[in-house]
């Protein structure tokens, strides 16, 4: 039974030390068996979605991320929206963001947020989200162009910006991330088809390989759709236990029994991923090989067959 003691009423010091030691041990053991190449010089990042509850579970995910950072030194965390629930005062930013990820922030890990429906529009200005005051923005890390989108309001201006950014991108990988999933087989929300109709044609046209989203409070890896692998990772604080209704035609892997987050490593044409539960257990992992394409744009459907390997050890 997970503990729901609020973080402002912590355990007694002795208990905290014991819990931290136990978690550290579990995390260390788990990290040793992370199914990621952990190649020096590769781009390593984490993905969290729907995290900002301020509850104990969010703190425990944060501890797991911190523990794994020691052996898998990622320096970027992409945030998939609903970064904060409920109150969003300065003290909430401390309780629901700065404190759970304090060690990562101290270690210089950069968080790059996209906003969800529970976030306040003005949060684009919160310094540690690194959003440059924009609802949508892009940046480059290694050979990857990340595009953080605002899926809550997809206006013509954003679509024009997205098309121009994808068209002009010279990087090998283009990785959009945003809150509402274009494909999801969770019962609560499911696929945002209204957005899929707008965004997917651009992703296909300009050779996107991987998309990350949250919103549904589960983990799901979707089989490549028109050549694109979609991840739903919306359980880094919230959880809708047992909410997945896996579709054999779409679902490649899923986990809906505990909070989770993702670790990703990009090296050349290869992207390795692992989804990790709050307990430290790896619940899904695999590799995506970038699609073969002559030019950045206009890849034919026949060229868009990514190699994706991976599997759940225990979906439920």
């Amino acid at each position: 039974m997970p503990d729901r003691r609020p973080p402002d009423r912590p355990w007694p010091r002795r208990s905290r030390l014991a819990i931290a030691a136990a978690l550290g041990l579990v995390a260390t053991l788990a990290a040793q068996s992370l199914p990621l190449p952990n190649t020096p010089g590769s781009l390593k990042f984490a993905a969290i979605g729907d995290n900002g509850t301020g509850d104990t579970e969010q703190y425990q995910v944060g501890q797991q991320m911190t523990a794994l950072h020691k052996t898998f030194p990622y320096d970027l965390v992409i945030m998939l929206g609903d970064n904060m629930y409920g109150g969003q005062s300065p003290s909430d930013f401390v309780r629901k963001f700065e404190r759970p990820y304090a060690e990562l922030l101290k270690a210089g890990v950069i968080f790059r947020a996209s906003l969800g429906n529970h976030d306040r529009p003005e949060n684009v200005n919160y310094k540690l989200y690194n959003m440059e005051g924009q609802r949508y923005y892009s940046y480059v890390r290694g050979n990857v162009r990340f595009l953080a989108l605002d899926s809550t309001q997809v206006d013509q201006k954003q679509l024009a910006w997205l098309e121009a950014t994808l068209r002009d991108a010279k990087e090998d990988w283009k990785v959009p991330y945003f809150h509402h999933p274009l494909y999801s087989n969770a019962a609560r929300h499911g696929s945002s088809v209204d957005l899929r109709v707008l965004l997917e044609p651009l992703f296909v046209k300009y050779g996107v390989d991987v998309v990350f989203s949250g919103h549904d409070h589960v983990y799901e890896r979707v089989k490549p759709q028109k050549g694109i692998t979609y991840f739903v990772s919306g359980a880094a604080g919230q959880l809708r236990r047992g909410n997945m209704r896996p579709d054999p035609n779409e679902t490649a892997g899923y986990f809906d029994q505990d909070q989770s987050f993702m670790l990703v490593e990009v090296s050349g044409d290869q992207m390795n991923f692992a989804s990790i539960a709050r307990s430290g257990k790896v619940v899904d992992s695999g590799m995506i090989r970038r699609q073969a394409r002559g030019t950045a744009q206009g890849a034919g459907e026949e060229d868009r067959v990514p190699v994706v390997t991976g599997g759940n050890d225990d979906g439920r």
Partner: protein
Amino acid sequence: MAAEPRRSRAARLRASVPRLSQFALEHLLLLPLGAGIALIWANIWPESYFQTSYAAAFAINDVAMVFFFALMTKEVVEATAPGGVLHPWRRAWLPVIAAIGVATIPAWLHTNLVDYFDEPMLVSGWPVAFTIDVALAYFVARLVFGPRHPAIPFVLVLSIAADALGFVALAITDPTPFRPAGLAGVVVAMAVAGGLRRSGVRSFWPYLAGPGTLSWIALLWSGLHPALALVPVLPFLPHAARDPGFFVDAPEGARDTLSQFDRVCRYPAQAALFLFGLINGGVPLHAFEAGAWALPVATIVGRPLGLLAGVAFARAIGMHMPHRLSWRSLVPLGFATASGFSVGLFFTTALIPPGQLRSEISMGVLITAVLGPVLALVTGWLTKARYGEGPAPDA
């Protein structure tokens, strides 16, 4: 002995269905029909629905809806003629003042409720809380109060004024960049329409082809909604000396320009309304988050409160309530005006781009369109608001 009360109930039921114009009746049927089909379509074949909806959005929302707003403007223009609810203007002041409360209190509630429902992004939908579907409010008020109750002209003026305030709010908050110079084109269109009228042009076609087209282009260019293109032009069309009544079909023999326009444009407007419901009413039911309740709660609670506050303010500055319009009757009246429906959906599509916010606000509009009339009927029955059969008090 038993047959008499049965006949009496049947007669009362028949009498309770207002005699409305064909346009108003079809407004009340075609728009819900379109929205109902859209709801089913969007939830069974969402991909084809949204592809169709996005492809048709400009043609329907920005072009075809010109005829709907033109016919609504025609009703308002005629209402300023002798016998109309806006004639003389002095008579309309109390509901106009009350409209400020009716529009702003639900909007204020909405901006606060979205925090309660933990969906702060929904705050941008506040102008939708201003809107009142004039035809729906009129229809429900006639059912609740009877056709000759002074609440009927009151509700019409109230709805028109609240929508007018809503359009101001929409213009202020519309994210489309605004080019004020474009308004010069609208002024020119009005001047040309005035010139046509002074020249004695009796056909409405030159008004549509010249000033109407110019106004549409100017509004589009300026960043304001081009569906309102005929709103500044219609007042220049020659109209009947007396108002035939709100939502009353133009008599067959009427030869004034506005009545001719009504007869010809009624059918395009009906088609536009159906298609408008069809392409904008499709809300994925999985988008039905707690936030979708913010708008219905704000309007259902805020409308009667706003009406009471607005009327209290108007009374405090020396205005008088219409004869036989009691404080108690303001409650069902408030519920009758709760729904924005056609105008609410129009504001939603104009203001909020595709995505979850639009879905939630649209869902809120649809919920209110059902809840508002039901509550109006229930509270009207509880407060015994309806007139008996007899002469109107102000007749």
